[in-house]
């Protein structure tokens, strides 16, 4: 795995697009799980990427964040950092979205769209 030693998390990872090995867009990095028990002077390590409306209240405080999370269905997925293959302009995943539980929003609406004529 080619992972840079240190990464500007706020700028380089947070809010970036997640893409699976098939090139499927499957969510944004809505938040990050950090390992807090590190030696003083050592950089914090990311343990997981948090994806989904469940994590939006952490980004927008107060009732608006909660309302958005509810509108979005309230789902959340924790993707282990070990499943991250590379960080380019997108966060590229090592496994397909379906295996990681990502892209479920699109999956939910697919049957509806497929029922339309000529879809």
């Amino acid at each position, binding site marked *: 795995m080619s992972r840079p030693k240190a990464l500007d998390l706020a*700028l*380089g990872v*947070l*809010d*970036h*697009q*997640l893409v699976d090995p098939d090139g*499927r*867009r*499957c*969510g*944004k990095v*809505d938040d990050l799980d950090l390992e807090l028990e590190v030696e003083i002077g050592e950089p914090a390590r990311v343990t997981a990427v948090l*994806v989904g409306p469940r994590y*939006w209240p952490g*980004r*927008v405080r107060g009732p608006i964040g909660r309302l*958005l999370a509810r509108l*979005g269905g309230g789902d959340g997925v924790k993707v282990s950092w070990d499943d991250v293959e590379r960080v*380019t*302009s*997108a966060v590229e995943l090592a496994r397909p979205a379906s295996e990681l539980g990502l*892209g479920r*929003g*699109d999956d939910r*609406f*697919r049957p*509806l*769209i*497929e029922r*339309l004529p*000529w*879809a």
Partner: protein
Amino acid sequence: MKAIFQVALGILAAIGGFVDIGDLVFNVAAGAEFGFSLLWVVVVGVVGIIVYSEMCGRVAAVSKRAVFDAVRERLGFGVGLVALVAAQLVTFLTLAAEVGGIAIVLQLLSNLPFLALVPLAFIGLLAAIWFLEFEWIERLFGYAGLCLIVFVVAAIKLEPDWGSVAHGFVPQIDTGDPLVYLYFMVGLLGAAMTPYEVYFYSSGAIEEGWTPKDLGLNRLNTVIGYGLGGLLSFALMITAGALFLPQGIQPQLIGTVALGAEVPLGQVGLLLALVGILFAVGGAAIDTCFSFAYNLAQFFGWEWGKYRGPARAPRFTLAWLVLLVLACCVIATGIDPVMLTEYAVIFSAVALPLTYLPILLVANDRAYMREYANGRLANVFGVVYLVVILFVALAAIPLMLITNMGQG
């Protein structure tokens, strides 16, 4: 021939993006009110949209990121959400105005009742989006919209005082009615630099699979496309200045715009003008409809793109479908499309800074843009225009209220 097809994105950006109902209304109204003295503002707007579209196309080709990817990354979830809501409101208003424009032109062509033509506009747009490939949407609406060149012929045929026209390109302020003049300045800049143009252009570059090899094409697209858009805007304003100003006509209807071609060129002129307006406004309706869905998908990380097909990008597909239905419903209530257009353009001006700042930041990020990051020229222009649109954004709504939407 190949080159002509290759600049299709630029031509559609020009015809369906630049010259849309907002430009038709504002350029003609500006010409009817102030003659040629606002021509220089169009130049400022055209250069601005070229600068930022070129940046967007470059960011898309190099980093595969469209505008709302950049907005989300650079502004974060919270502020990005404010930008999203503003963008979506303006885009929806614009789409409704464009659908109204289509129905009006169809009415002028067919004499059928307006309300019967809204569903026809809906079916036409739906069929074009559903059945045509992205490239063919660009070609059909872009090239058919070129009928608008009839206004260039009309402007020349009207034999305006070319000395006064040339003087119109010198920056000035009308001292007779400075606030109304300023209102039109803001409107013309808002119409020229409407945010959905860059949403559509950057996402379109990804739809077409641009890579750094296409950067030359990107430059060509923006300069030719928006240059052409600017030329058409000049022609509309000159026609209105030469024809409507002396007679004291204030165009309140889309039909009056077409009159500008009919008076000097007769029935053929009128027909070409109407067909041109139909496809320009139709193209803009598709641009805005897609832009809305692009923005949502890019902000929330959904799969998106016409190139994916409806089943692979279900939420994206649903977003534009629902929006199109809603816009048609709004227009079917009988709301005046010209008034809707003015609101759409003025609120666009307010949404401009939140769209353009993240693009400027990302275009400067060497980590992604490598050797393709902004050079000094792009940055000087980028920053100057950011200051300009900041003023425009702050002044837009106060001017709209003080001047009663330019009525004085």
